[in-house]
């Protein structure tokens, strides 16, 4: 009888799996001892939940509407400067979120031309829900672009060519053929973007420390009350993320 061939790598890999698993187990175990429902019933928690559930979907919608067309162009066309555009799409993933937040502040902060003009028009771009959305968008939009691009890339160009030769222009072909065929990848990208947006912390802390979203509220409560104080909100955030994930799978 053969010895399992991949014993050594399986053991090494098992170590990191245990490390991934352990926090989930201890966290869920801890929730048993905390009063989750009353923790979520406080006005502050309610407001944070409402803010998060308002901003993350808007961010996801903007990222999808602007990002999916971009993904299609990147999957189908080559043009001068394409590599720069590709690098630009990946940059927000590479840049640490706090740095990203600082960068956004230099662009739309209260004392920048853009920021002061917007504030004068009654739409402050920092410390507002608009600021939260801007922070989330910068950090989370690349996910739907990259995933949708892979989805479009996996479609045989000849299927689109067949549609063209059957009398449909590029736009109708996109709606009739490309979009339905890339549906799975686009949905996956939307979920990733939503998950990243609703959990966004670093950039949001910089751009919009107020009004509180669930992640920033967790931080504030942690400072005030330690680990037990944040279990209800952390569990709720975890549940929302998993729920959206499960909804589509």
């Amino acid at each position, binding site marked *: 009888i053969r010895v399992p061939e991949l014993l050594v790598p399986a053991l090494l890999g098992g170590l990191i799996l245990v490390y991934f698993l352990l926090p989930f187990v201890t966290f869920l175990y801890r929730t048993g001892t905390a009063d989750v429902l009353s923790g979520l019933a406080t006005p502050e928690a309610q407001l944070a939940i409402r803010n998060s559930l308002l901003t993350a979907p808007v961010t996801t919608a903007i990222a999808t509407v602007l990002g999916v067309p971009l993904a299609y162009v990147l999957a189908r066309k080559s043009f001068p400067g394409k590599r720069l555009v590709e690098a630009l799409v990946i940059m927000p993933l590479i840049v640490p979120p706090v740095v990203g937040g600082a960068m956004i502040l230099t662009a739309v902060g209260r004392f920048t031309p853009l920021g002061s003009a917007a504030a004068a028009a009654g739409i402050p771009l920092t410390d507002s829900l608009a600021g939260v959305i801007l922070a989330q968008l910068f950090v989370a939009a690349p996910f739907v672009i990259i995933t949708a691009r892979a989805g479009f890339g996996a479609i045989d160009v000849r299927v689109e060519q*067949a549609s063209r030769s059957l*009398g449909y222009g590029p736009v109708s072909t996109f709606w009739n053929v490309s979009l339905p065929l890339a549906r799975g990848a686009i949905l996956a990208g939307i979920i990733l973007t939503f998950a990243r947006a609703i959990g966004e912390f670093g950039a949001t802390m910089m751009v919009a420390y107020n009004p509180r979203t669930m992640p920033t509220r967790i931080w504030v409560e942690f400072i005030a009350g330690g680990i037990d104080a944040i279990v209800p909100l952390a569990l709720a955030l975890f549940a929302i993320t998993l729920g959206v994930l499960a909804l589509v799978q």
Partner: protein
Amino acid sequence: MILELDDLTHRYGDELAVDGVSIGVGAGELVAVLGPSGCGKTTIVQAVAGHVQPSGGRIRLRGADVTDDPPEARQVGIVFQHSTLFPHLTVEENVEYGLKARDVPPGHREEVVTRFLELVDLPEQREAYPSELSGGQKRRVELARALAPEPDVLLLDEPLSALDRSLRVGLREEIARIQAETGVTTLLVTHDQEEAMSLADRLVVMDDGRVAGIGPPRELYESPPTPFVASFLGRSNALSATLADGTPPTIEIGGESARLPEGCEPGTVTGTVDCHVRPEDVTMTVGVTDGSGDEDDVLSLQGVVRRVADVGRRYDVTVELETGAELVAERAARPPERGTRVEVRIRPADVAVFDSENERV
């Protein structure tokens, strides 16, 4: 001419993929473009369909210049090597797709779909999704989809290459039948010599972006204009020979010589030439005969059997001539054993002679 390519040229970057190709396809004609992979034949299909904008030359459909028209403005049906059926639509919806774009009224659409599904012999599969079909069925639905809008030209880009061999021959017959029944003008692109010859009214043999030969299949097969056509269109033995002047001229191989058939002009070429002869035109007798008594109009060459390959329908016998050259002869009956000395006979009428510029003598 329904379809005309006029001096079509295309380069990808520095690579010249198609180099001054001119082809015309008449109403109801099936023209096959045959060549090895990379010869530029797929680029031609893409240019005709409008998916590639050629670097130079013109494409005309029914006399109208369509070179700058987008694909959807050309009345062109296309079937690719791999299935491009829309996986999220049923067979019926796939076939109907092109009719919708052409504003055929819904009631009439259903009728047309029925007619074309019957044409390809798949009336039962109407509600099926492409994933439920076999490879051969997919092919037939694609033919129906491409034909339903009644295009000016049907383009077939290696339509059978991705299929198993057993399916291939059956579908070849189907394509022949469907093309005959609909009378659609067709441009077929393939690397398969048998497929091209058996389907085509006219054949275009491509070599490295250029037309190497054009004409009826049998004519190209029997008197190939270039060595490339001789060897790509069926198998061919290449032998080096000496051409001597005369009326008609004579060719000489390994000390044996024979007169070329009447009608060959002496021309200006003498000296070393390339001779191509097909394995089925080489006859073989066992044993050494004295070549001196031979008729003047047959080349009799001595050799030894080096290898016998039994391919079922026939035997391929490889003979090493005394000159050192090797030559394959076909035999239907049991061939001589390896090592047997044989005499190989070639009729000059079966030989295609090319000069050093690859021009047919």
